[in-house]
């Protein structure tokens, strides 16, 4: 036992364990067959919620997919520099001004889902009640987001809301920090809706007019009061939180649902007030002009005369490589790793069909049949084979199966200041709106038929005690009931619980919690005493010596 050995042992003692572990684990984890290989993607947070679902479903099916929700421009850049295998985006390379798309890698756009940008807000009426039925015309929205309307009491907002005047508070415009495809989409809408204001505004703020505005970082003074957040999640959280009062922002509709943020009813070309439910998105996008490479021009969507149209809708894409194809000059070559193509094609096939089933529930709209078929065509291009023909038998996309989408809820009457009677003194308190809420709910119930009513009832029974989040009172709960009923009837039994939950919330009277609490059913007993004991011990360990030392040193100080 020499000192040298002991030294060697000492120095290596820690590394040895780790070093030995590594190769063993590598050996253990290396799959026996090459395919399917891991694939990595990154990009759009607009499609982030859908991706979360698809990725986890894909993983369950044994497809090792990974998606990092950052932003469309970042996804495209990473795709262009080959650091990821695919990218998620809602705008094209050219529209986002991302270089490298024309690089040797090549690309194709594969549509994956239809979505919409919601206008979220956090406003109180003069009585101090939370407003959750705000209506905004397209032009008002455009003016707000260009700083042209700076107060909630502005006449344009009052007019949109049937004379309900909001308090004289400055509007805080919330925007995405950094580059974002959602910003690109939304400001494209703003530009097309109010071009005569947009021109001077863009010039004043040194924002581009030719390409899309994908970041507002350079012109933070584009509106009098602005605030930037770092991602779709934070925007929704920021607006919903108590610090977000008097703010308004744009974000994918799914986040509004996830965080229970109020989103505005937007007036479309037909004069209807709509929210981005699946039917509205679908209706709007019938006017989307798709180019040969499937990239979209949304100008006509904003002015779609269909009364169901939600005007700020757009398709989202997955960007992949593809085998050279004369019809597609951007296709430049297959994935070098066949395992990547294997995983990606299988996963895309899933997205084209089964993946569309739950889209309406989480705030998107399923792809139309022709675009599902385009996904299949894209898969064919990736493999260099003839594409599979999709139909109702081999594809579960609800648009194939023909169930269609139920009519969406109609806009509730304006509340907060006594309906159309103008700005009252706020005498209503909480009782008055409750009546209005009940009325709305009844109306919707009759519209969507008995199926929804049964579903809601069952769910109420099952989850009656769930402290489901309301949105700051009865009003919000009512608001959320609408989409629930709509989607519930569209998708049958599978989403009954989804329809029922808001109903349950209503029956429970609602609460002021803005985030989903942990599901009660999963709160297994067991760790609680352990946690308690650990904390007690820890506190004792920390506080004991301190108190001891303090007492002692004070005593000795005497």
């Amino acid at each position, binding site marked *: 036992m020499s000192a040298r050995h002991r030294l060697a042992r000492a120095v290596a003692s820690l590394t040895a364990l780790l070093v030995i572990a590594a190769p063993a684990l590598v050996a253990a984890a290396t799959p026996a067959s090459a395919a399917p290989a891991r694939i990595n993607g*990154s990009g759009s947070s607009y499609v982030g919620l859908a991706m979360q679902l698809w990725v986890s479903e894909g993983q369950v099916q044994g497809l090792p997919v990974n998606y990092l929700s*950052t932003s469309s*421009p*970042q*996804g495209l*850049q*990473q795709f*262009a*520099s080959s*650091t990821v295998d695919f990218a998620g985006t809602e705008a094209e390379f050219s529209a986002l*001004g*991302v*270089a*490298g798309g024309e690089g040797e890698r090549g690309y194709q756009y594969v549509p994956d889902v239809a979505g919409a940008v919601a206008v979220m807000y956090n406003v109180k009426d003069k009585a101090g009640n939370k407003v959750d039925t705000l209506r905004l015309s397209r032009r008002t929205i455009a003016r707000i987001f260009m700083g042209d309307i700076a107060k909630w009491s502005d006449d344009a907002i009052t007019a949109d809301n049937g004379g309900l005047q909001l308090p004289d*508070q400055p509007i805080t415009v919330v925007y995405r*920090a*950094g*580059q974002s495809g959602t910003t690109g989409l939304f400001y494209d809408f703003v530009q097309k809706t109010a071009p005569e204001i947009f021109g001077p505004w863009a010039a004043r703020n*040194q924002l*581009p007019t030719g*390409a899309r*505005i*994908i*970041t507002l*970082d*350079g012109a*933070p003074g584009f509106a009098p009061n602005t*605030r*930037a*957040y*770092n991602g779709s999640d*934070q925007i929704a959280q*920021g607006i919903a*939180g108590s*610090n*977000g*009062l*008097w703010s308004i922002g744009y974000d994918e509709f799914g986040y509004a649902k996830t965080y229970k943020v109020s989103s505005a009813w937007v007036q479309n070309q037909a004069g209807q007030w709509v929210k981005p439910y699946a039917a509205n998105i679908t209706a709007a996008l019938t006017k989307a002009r798709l180019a040969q490479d499937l990239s979209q021009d949304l100008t006509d969507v904003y002015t779609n005369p269909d009364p169901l149209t939600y005007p700020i809708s757009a398709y989202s894409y997955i960007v992949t490589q593809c085998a050279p194809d004369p019809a597609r000059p951007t296709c430049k070559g297959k994935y070098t790793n066949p395992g990547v193509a294997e995983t990606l094609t299988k996963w895309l096939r899933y997205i084209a069909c089964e993946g569309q089933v739950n889209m309406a529930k989480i705030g998107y709209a399923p792809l139309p049949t022709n675009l599902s078929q385009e996904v299949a065509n894209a898969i064919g291009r990736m493999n260099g084979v003839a594409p599979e023909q999709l139909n109702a038998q081999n594809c579960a996309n609800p648009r194939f199966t023909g169930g269609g989408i139920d009519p969406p809820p109609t806009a509730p009457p304006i509340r907060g200041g006594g309906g159309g009677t103008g700005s009252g003194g706020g005498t209503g308190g909480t009782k008055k709106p409750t009546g209005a809420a009940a009325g709305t709910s009844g109306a919707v119930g009759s519209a969507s038929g008995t199926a929804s009513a049964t579903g809601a009832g069952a769910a109420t029974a099952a989850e009656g005690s769930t402290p489901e989040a309301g949105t700051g009172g009865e009003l919000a709960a009512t608001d959320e009931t609408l989409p629930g009923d709509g989607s519930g009837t569209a998708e049958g039994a599978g989403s009954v619980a989804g329809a029922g939950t808001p109903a349950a919330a209503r029956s429970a009277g609602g609460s002021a919690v803005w985030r989903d609490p942990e599901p009660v059913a999963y709160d297994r007993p067991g760790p609680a005493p352990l946690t308690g004991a650990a904390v007690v011990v820890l506190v004792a360990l920390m506080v004991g*010596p301190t108190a*001891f*030392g303090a007492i*002692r*040193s004070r005593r*000795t*100080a005497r």
Partner: protein
Amino acid sequence: MDAETPVASPPRRPRVVVDEPARVDRVFDAVTFWSGFSVLVLLSIVGLFLLTSSGDSLGQTGLWTFLTRVEWRTDVQPARIGVLGLLVGTVVVAVIAVVLAVPVGVLAALFITDYSSARLRRVLIGLVDLLAAIPSLLFGVWGFVLLSNQMVPVSRWISDHFGWIPFLATEPNRDLTGSMFIAGVVVGIMVLPIITSVAREVFSQAPPGEKEAALALGSTRWGMIRTVVLPYGKGGIVGGTMLALGRALGETIAVALLLPQVPLVSKNILEYGGATVSGFIATHSGGDPFTVSGLMAAGLVLFIITLGTNMMASVVVSRSRSGVGVEL
């Protein structure tokens, strides 16, 4: 050659003595030299690469413009990027952190060296070292989830009572989370152990003779500390502060979690907003080569500032009377 050396008369020049190193020594010399040298090479490659790859963006932007421009935009042609907006945030956060942490850290060090019993002192030293070992991520998460909301009333209170100071005034209904002040508080708690341990080290080396002399002259303990310990440890305190400043300047992940990372020179440190160089780099991963080059340039600027701070710290500490044996 030894045979010719005259014995009687002392030679003017010493004889050349060659010790043929053993083979193992030659190997040893080679191995240690090359590992030392390769560390040198490696690190200079990092430095050189930082310089050259910053060159792309700096060449396009111009060094002075880059240093003085606030905005950071790569979506326009030509891109307009500048580091000033980030630097201001970096410095503000670091200064808040240090200003808050230094008094507490120095007093805590005094508590450890001069007020606590031997056993408690050992425990406390361990705990402070422990605090230093906790990854900054955990501080960031803690600040992000817990402290950020807890600090809102504090920010509100400060702005209510000290709003007459320009950068502390907030308008009502503003979001007070995610402010540079909160980031500064979290980073301050993070650098607290550094200041405490450096100050403790120098305080513990204060000459016992002088301390006893002060006490023997009838001074109170505070009198002794004021006349002996604090003057003695002055260099250590300054050095520790600058070391902590260097650390706070480079802090990444906590500020990436806490701040929105929008490069603006915010006029108000209590309101939502702010960006730091490292946090900005962390939240802007996956850019095109030009963006990366710009980020490199920003990182280089930060590195130079951190380097300067650290070097000043080591100079101050080694020049001071107490700092000779202190390792930074």
